[in-house]
Structures are given as structure tokens and as C-alpha cells.
């Protein structure tokens, strides 16, 4: 069926999905850490909105809770944490030079197509339009990995990691109206702990190699030098 026949809310969710995908792309091309964190927070916000809308549409109680969790964690806490670290290690000025940005971007685009192609069997035999957003969420996941691969800053890696979480979360919402409550809570807890641990690690890493450039972390390898 066509997007015209859908109710307003679903349309809104779908367009949010598109926006979320866009934010992933923005992050992918972003060399400045502060902006990266900002875009990440933006993605979190969009995710919250999407969750809220979905909750409202399907009037599903516990989606509200998870929306609140998302807001707390992904929009406020983690960005704040990251921002704090960026400022403390005053990396807010330096720009990471990304090699062949365009290629990465094109790769990202093709990833989106690829994820649609992968999920085709899922999407084709379902009636609820919302599931189409599954493709976007998968592409968000993959883009997150791509982000980690293409960026050298540990903080960028964390952002990528978290955006992968976003993607998964979004997938859960659009496909299955969120996971069971226990699981949601568990995931949220894990994300929280992870965020804290990341904070600790930033300190350790910068203490040991006084930079957050992960390319410097290559003592342990199997290559003859």
C-alpha cells in the first residue's frame, strides 16, 4: 500500500526514520568531535520522538518508558559525558582528517541499499508499513560500524558504538513495538554501564599513551616488525 493511505503518525515515524538515517550519514562525515557528539544527541532525540510516536500510535505503555530511558541516556547523559571528556582533553579544536570522505559516503549509501536488499524477505511478506523502517535501522547499525572503521578517535568510536545501539533500538521499535520490558531494562542498564566504563577507559588510555588516537593502540599484534 502507498504512504498516502497511512495515518499521519505512521508517516511521521517513517519520515523520522529517514531523518535518523540522515543523522548517521552526518556523523559518518563529521571530523569535529563536538559536532559529532551533537549530531549523536540529535539522533537520540529523533529516536525518542519516534519511540514516543510509536507508543502513541500503537498505544503501548512500556514504549513510553523506553522513550524516557532513551531521552535520559542517549540525549542527555551520554552526550554530556562525551562532551565533558572532549573538553577536558581539549580535543574540541582539532579536526580529524578523514581519508577519501566521498568514498566512505558512497559506501554508506550503498550500505543502505544493501540492507534493504538483505531485509527484503522480511519486508516483502508483511503488511505493516512500519517494518520498512527496519532497513533504515539496519543501515544505521552498519553505518555505525563504518563510522568506527573510518574514525581514529576513541570518542568517535564510542559515538559509533552508541549509534549502533540506536539503530538496534529503533529496529526493535519499528519491527516489534519494542522488546519485552525486562529486556529493554537490561539493555538500558548495559548501555549505562558501558557508557560509564567508556569514561573510565578514556582516562586510562590518555594516561598510558596521552592521546585517544586508537591507531596508537597497536602494541599487541602478530606482525613481524
Amino acid at each position, binding site marked *: 500500500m502507498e504512504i498516502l493511505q497511512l495515518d499521519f503518525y505512521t508517516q511521521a515515524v517513517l519520515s523520522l526514520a529517514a531523518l535518523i538515517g540522515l543523522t548517521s550519514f552526518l556523523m559518518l562525515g563529521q571530523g569535529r568531535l563536538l559536532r559529532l557528539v551533537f549530531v549523536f544527541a540529535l539522533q537520540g532525540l529523533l529516536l525518542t520522538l519516534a519511540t514516543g510516536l510509536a507508543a502513541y500510535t500503537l498505544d503501548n505503555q512500556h514504549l513510553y518508558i523506553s522513550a524516557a530511558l532513551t531521552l535520559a541516556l542517549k540525549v542527555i547523559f551520554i552526550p554530556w559525558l562525551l562532551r565533558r571528556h572532549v573538553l577536558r582533553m581539549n580535543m574540541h579544536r582539532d579536526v580529524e582528517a578523514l581519508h577519501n570522505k566521498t568514498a566512505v559516503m558512497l559506501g554508506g549509501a550503498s550500505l543502505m541499499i544493501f540492507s534493504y536488499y538483505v531485509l527484503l524477505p522480511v519486508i516483502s511478506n508483511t503488511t505493516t508499513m512500519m517494518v520498512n523502517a527496519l532497513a533504515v535501522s*539496519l543501515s544505521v547499525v552498519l553505518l555505525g560500524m563504518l563510522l568506527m572503521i573510518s574514525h581514529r578517535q576513541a570518542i568517535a*568510536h564510542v559515538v559509533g558504538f552508541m549509534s*549502533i545501539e540506536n539503530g538496534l533500538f529503533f529496529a526493535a521499535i519499528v*519491527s516489534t513495538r519494542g522488546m*519485552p520490558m525486562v*529486556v529493554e531494562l537490561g539493555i538500558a542498564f*548495559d548501555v549505562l554501564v558501558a557508557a560509564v566504563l567508556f569514561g573510565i*577507559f578514556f582516562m586510562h588510555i590518555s594516561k*598510558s599513551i596521552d592521546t585517544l588516537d586508537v591507531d596508537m593502540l597497536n602494541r*599487541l599484534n602478530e606482525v613481524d616488525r
Partner: protein
Amino acid sequence: MIPAYLLLFVPFVGIIYFALAGHQPQVGRINTWFNAVALVMSLWLAINVLNSGAILSGSQYFIVDSFNVYLIVLTAFVGLTTSIFSASYMAHEKDLGKLTDKRLRLYYSMYQGFMLTMYLVLTTNNMGIMWVAMEGATLATVMLVSLYRTPESIEAAWKYFILCGVGIAQALFGTILLYYAAIQSGDAETALLWSVLFENAAQLDPEILEIAFVFMLVGYGTKIGLVPLHNWLPDAHSEGPTPMSAVLSGLLLNDALYAVVRNKMLVDGATQSHIAGYLMMGFGLLSFLVAALFLHRQKDIKRLFSYSSIEHMGLMTFAFGIGTPFATFAALLHMTVHSLTKSAIFVTVGHAAQIAGTQSIDRIRGLINTQPKVGWGLLIGTLAIAGFPPFGVFVSEFLVLLATMHSYPWLTPLLLLGIGLACAGLFRNVQPMVYGARPEGQQPVQANLWPVMIHLALVLWMGLAVPGFLANWFTQATVLISGSAPL
């Protein structure tokens, strides 16, 4: 079902207790006691299951069947013996001034945390919770890997964290797809319960499950350490404190494999094809061969044995992938003997490293002359892990070989190659360490080798005669996994 809850409760208490009091002198022994209690609980649970078949908790959140109950006992057992070892080991490390009270607290409480997550992974019936627990295991151990705060250890921990985190995220996506497939036909609340999924696996949409399984395999496979997702494993094993390496090798890998197999059962149920099996076989064989090659160029004793872990996990994955009752039985047996043997080896390795004051293979020499028990322990353990009879590893490898010969004869040369390479790779490094004259100024250390002896004795027992009750477990588990009993 009570023992199961207690089993989860004990380490939970442990976390809190050690977080507060983890720095007292007797803490090592207390840790041992916690694990001992857990072992008792697990045995109790096992007896229940043996008497009255699989147990499903009232809330359906926990399931204990013949497949996971023996893994639970194994986990508890290895946890106990390793804690015995870690008591003397950590005391020695503290005397060397490598650790502060704060870190000791962290260590012991996270030890319990890790055990908790392990038990949770094994007992839970909810695939989502299983994922949560698996991620929790990463979080619990990642701080332990960097316990010494050396640059290497931090690097290792970071890689461990990122790679496993990203990997496990894939597994979550797989779980979501699984859930999605499930709620197409069924109630949203119970849809993630493994028991429910397994019952009506036939109704699940095969195509979705295939995709889901790919994500699961990549996700949990990262934790198993399948090549090329294994990169974190040797680093994490080699840089953390040795007891941690022992439990990582002995338990974490097993439980990740356990998760994969659980999912494989669902996928096989849904798609009447063997696709999951083929994927696992491919991964397994690749890991097996590549790890065997890596063994040949190791300079760090703990890295050496972590690669051997990869190799053996590869073999198990391969065997589970074959999927015939025969192979499955072999894989289950191999899980057991490998974790016993490998943890025993890591114990001796820890002492060896303390004797020589380094982990570098080139500087560990003449162990048999310095401290015969450690030297012989390492040598015999290596023999066992290299698959020489009369140790249990031989039995399982024998069965795997024959099962392969039976189902995929053209793959046996590869196995032959791999086993030969692995044996050579291990011994070319181990022999110089145990044999030869005693280096200047190398002194014996205070070592408690009971865990090693017990483990090796058990492995020997399984090599000579797989004990009846264990055989029953394996057979039941085999029936559960592959549908029919071996012969």
C-alpha cells in the same frame, strides 16, 4: 527450581560483599567459599534435573534441561577450582605490589559478577536476557583485563570492549529479528522464550531466521573467538590476571558457543535446511586451521594457549556444525574436557610466569628442574590439550575425526593438517620451557596445584571411561540438540 534461584543469588551477594570488603587478607578463601556454595547449588540442581527431567520455572523465565545443566555444573566447578588457584596467585601478586586494595576489591567482586552473568546466560529461558547477560559478562571482565593498568593491558581491554560490544550488538539485532519472526505467530510476552520458540519453531519464517542466525553467529561468534572475529581474544587473555584467563577460556567461550547452539536449534527447526550447520562448519574449520598456524609464532606463553583455545573452539563449532548425533556428542564432550584442561593449563602457566617473572616464552626455561610439579603439570596439560590419550581431549577429537570421516570424508585431510600443526606449534614452544637446565637465580614459588591435579585427573577419567551419569547427560543433550542419540 529453588537451587537455580539460589545459584543466581549467591554470586549476587558475592558482588556486593566483595565490593565492600574485597581487600581483607582472607578474601581469597572467602571467594572460594562463595564458589563452593554455588557448586553445591548447581549439583543440587543437577540432581533435580537428573531425577525429573528438564525444569521450567513457573514464570518461564528460567529453563534447566540436560543441555545446560551440565554446563552449569561445569561452570560452577571451574569457577571453584580457579578461585582456589586465584587465592594464592592474587596473594602473590599483591606481595609483588602489582595490585592495590581498590583493585583487589574490584577483582573479587567482578569475579563474582562474571560468575553471575555466566549462570544467567546458562539458566535463562529468554533470548533477550541471554543477550543482556552476555553483554554483562563483557562489562564484568573488561575491567579485569586492564587490572594491571599497563599500556598493553589497557589496549587489550579497549579492544576487547569495542570488538565484543560491536559484535554483541549484531547478536541483538539477530534477537530482534527472531522476536519479530516470533510475534508474527504468538503472544508478544512469551515470544522470546526459548522453550516457546522451540516448540513452534516450525511456524517461524525460515528466511527471517536465516538472517537472524547470521547476526547471531557474527555476534556470539565474536565472543567464541571465531576467526576472523577473534582478534580481541589473545590480547585479553594474555594481559589480564591469569585466573581471569582461565575462566575466560574455560567458561566464557563455552557459554557463547552454548548461545549459538541454542539459536542453531531454532533455525534448524524453522528452516529444514542445513544452512546454519554449514556456516558453523566453515567458521569452525577456518578458526581451527588459522589458530593452529598462529601457535607457531607465539612469544608470550598466555597468548600461546589462548590461540589454542581458539583452535579448540573452532573444532567444537565445526563439530556442532556437522550436527550428526555422533558429532554433537563429541562436541559436548570436547566442551567439557577442553574447559577443564585449559583452565588447568592456565593455572600452571600462571605459576610458570611467576617463577620466571615474565610471560615471554624465551625467558621461561627448565621448569621441571626448578619446580617439578609446575613443569610436569604444564607438560602433561599440554599433552592433554594436544589430544594425546589417555586424556579426554583425545576421545572427543577421535570422535570428531570419525564423525567427519563419516559425513564429510574430504574434510578429514584438513583436520589432519590442523591437528598436526597444532601439536607441533604447541610443543615447539612448550618443550624448551619445561625441559633443560635450570636458569640462574630461578626460584620455586608458593603454588597450590590441587586444581591442576583435580582437573587433569577428571580429564584422564573421561579419557579412559566417560562416567555413566555424564554419558547420560551427553546422550540426553545430544537427543535434545540433534534429535537422536549417538548409536
